[in-house]
């Protein structure tokens, strides 16, 4: 299989950039490069990953200032041309602020920073980010966020559902969707969301932190492997 080139964007305050790099370069054996937010060069990557962290200290709103970074104009153009973009945690927040995904994030329903393993159920296995998983499959992947309470107005939620844009939902270990498993209070228990065109996905759980057995789970790898096999 031909090697792909992944680009991991670094903003001031990103803190999962090296973990993501490690998961792609060392675990998945793909060529990976860092992309500095002040540049205008995507270095011919096949897939852009916006990593987790606290870009610009979460000032104003999580992900809001990063969305105005010079490089994000290129990322936007790349996405509009069909390029694959994955936003993890803070990366998801950036994609929302950038308008590449619909909706916004509110503070978690219990006002706590949540750092724990959660279960997510695969709702759509037809996307470039999830096709190696099976619909209904349950993945154990950790979350670590303050603002992960996904919100969109009712008409947008309806549209998202009609277009099967929900890729992952928070569930319990058996795959049941309920209020207790929906730890941050997200509308429709949304943990991962894809755009209408099907090439930009945001997810709050951290697949890079669940890419090896040593880390407590390797369920996150299926997301990276989906991208790799899709692009090959």
């Amino acid at each position, binding site marked *: 299989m031909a090697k792909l080139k992944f680009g991991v964007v670094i903003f001031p305050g990103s803190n999962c950039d090296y973990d993501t790099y490690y998961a792609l370069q060392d675990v998945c054996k793909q060529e990976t490069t860092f992309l500095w937010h002040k540049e205008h060069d995507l270095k011919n990557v096949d897939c852009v990953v916006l990593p987790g962290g606290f870009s610009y200290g979460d000032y104003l709103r999580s992900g*809001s200032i990063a969305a105005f970074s010079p490089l994000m104009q290129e990322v936007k153009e790349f996405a509009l041309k069909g390029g694959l973009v994955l936003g993890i945690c803070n990366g998801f927040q950036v994609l929302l602020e950038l308008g590449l995904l619909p909706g916004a994030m*509110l*503070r*978690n329903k*219990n*006002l706590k920073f949540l750092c724990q393993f959660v279960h997510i159920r695969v709702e759509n296995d037809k996307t470039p980010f999830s096709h190696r998983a099976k619909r209904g499959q349950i993945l154990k992947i950790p979350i670590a966020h303050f603002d992960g309470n996904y919100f969109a107005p009712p008409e947008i939620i309806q549209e998202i559902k009609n277009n099967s844009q929900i890729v992952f939902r928070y569930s319990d270990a058996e795959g049941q969707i309920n209020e207790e498993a929906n730890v941050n209070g997200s509308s429709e228990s949304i943990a991962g969301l894809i755009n209408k065109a099907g090439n930009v996905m945001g997810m709050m759980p951290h697949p890079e932190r669940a890419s090896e057995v040593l880390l407590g789970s390797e369920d996150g790898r299926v997301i990276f492997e989906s991208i790799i096999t899709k692009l090959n």
Partner: protein
Amino acid sequence: MKVRILVSLKDSVLDPQGQTVKNALRTLGYGSIKDVRQGKVFEIELEGISEKEAEKIIPEISDKVLANPIIEKFSWQILEKG
């Protein structure tokens, strides 16, 4: 010219921080507190533009940057002219 811009969550969006503040106030015995909505205040100084131009710029920056129109609304007032 000095302008104050107030950004807060839309009425249709649940405000868990405001709810928590409300509960704390009620716990302290302020039983008359019916509801609390929390928001952000920006005080912005402008120079070299007319009031008319400011009236154009302020809603623009509020909509583009200071507020996220999906969940937030804004209002503003001129504090100091000139």
